C-alpha cells in the first residue's frame, strides 16, 4: 500500500546529541512537511519542501534542519536537542496543484506518517 513511513518510531537521545529522523513516501507526492507536536497541542509546522524548494516557517529554531535528497525521502535533523524539543514529530505529504485541477483532484489533503516520538534525557 502506498503510504508515509517514519523511522524510528521512538528515539531517545541525550541533551545536545544530534538526532536524525527520517520519512519516506510511496505516494509520489510533491510536497513533504515536518510538524512538531507537543503533548496535548496541535501539530506545529516546522517547514516543508515543495519539490526541491525548502520553505522554513519564520519561528522554526535554527536547531532544526531538513534535507530532501529525492522525491521519496525527507529528513529532519535536530543539531543539539534540548529538553524542550521532546515531542512527536510528524511527517506528512501532499500533492499540491493549482486552480481548477486542485478543486477537482482533492489537492491539499495531507497524508501523515505514524510519527516519531523523541525523548531527550
Amino acid at each position: 500500500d502506498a503510504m508515509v513511513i517514519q523511522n524510528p518510531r521512538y528515539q531517545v537521545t541525550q541533551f545536545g546529541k544530534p538526532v536524525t529522523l527520517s520519512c519516506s513516501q510511496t505516494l509520489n507526492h510533491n510536497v513533504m512537511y515536518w510538524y512538531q507536536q507537543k503533548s496535548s497541542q496541535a501539530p506545529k509546522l516546522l517547514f516543508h519542501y515543495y519539490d526541491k524548494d525548502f520553505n522554513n516557517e519564520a519561528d522554526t529554531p535554527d536547531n532544526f534542519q531538513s534535507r530532501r535528497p529525492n522525491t521519496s525521502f525527507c529528513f529532519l535533523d535536530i543539531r543539539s536537542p534540548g529538553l524542550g524539543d521532546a515531542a512527536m514529530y510528524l511527517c506528512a505529504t501532499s500533492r499540491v496543484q493549482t486552480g481548477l485541477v486542485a478543486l477537482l483532484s482533492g489537492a491539499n489533503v495531507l497524508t501523515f506518517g505514524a510519527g516519531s516520538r523523541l525523548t531527550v534525557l
Partner: protein
Amino acid sequence: AQSVTQLDSQVPVFEEAPVELRCNYSSSVSVYLFWYVQYPNQGLQLLLKYLSGSTLVKGINGFEAEFNKSQTSFHLRKPSVHISDTAEYFCAVSVANNNDMRFGAGTRLTVKP
C-alpha cells in the same frame, strides 16, 4: 493567514450518545476544511474534508460535518458514538494555491461506557 479555533478542549460523552465537536475558522479567501483523528502514539488520519460543493460532507467511521460559510464553522458530528471513537480530533484549514495547513488545538473526545 487562515486560522482555526476549536472551542472545546475536552468532550466527555457516554457510549451511543450523539456528539458534536465545534470548529470555527478565519480566512479572507475561500477555504478547504478538514477533520483529522489521532489515536494515541499515532499520526493523524483524515476523517473528512470539504473542498467545494455540498456543504454536508460524510466521512469515515460514521462522522459528518457541515460547512457553514455565514457562521464560518465546520462542526463535526456523529449520531451515536462508540468506545473506539475515543481519540483526539483536529480541525484544519488551508487555502487554494497555498501549501500551508493550519490546525486547531484539538478536542479530546472521551467515550465512556
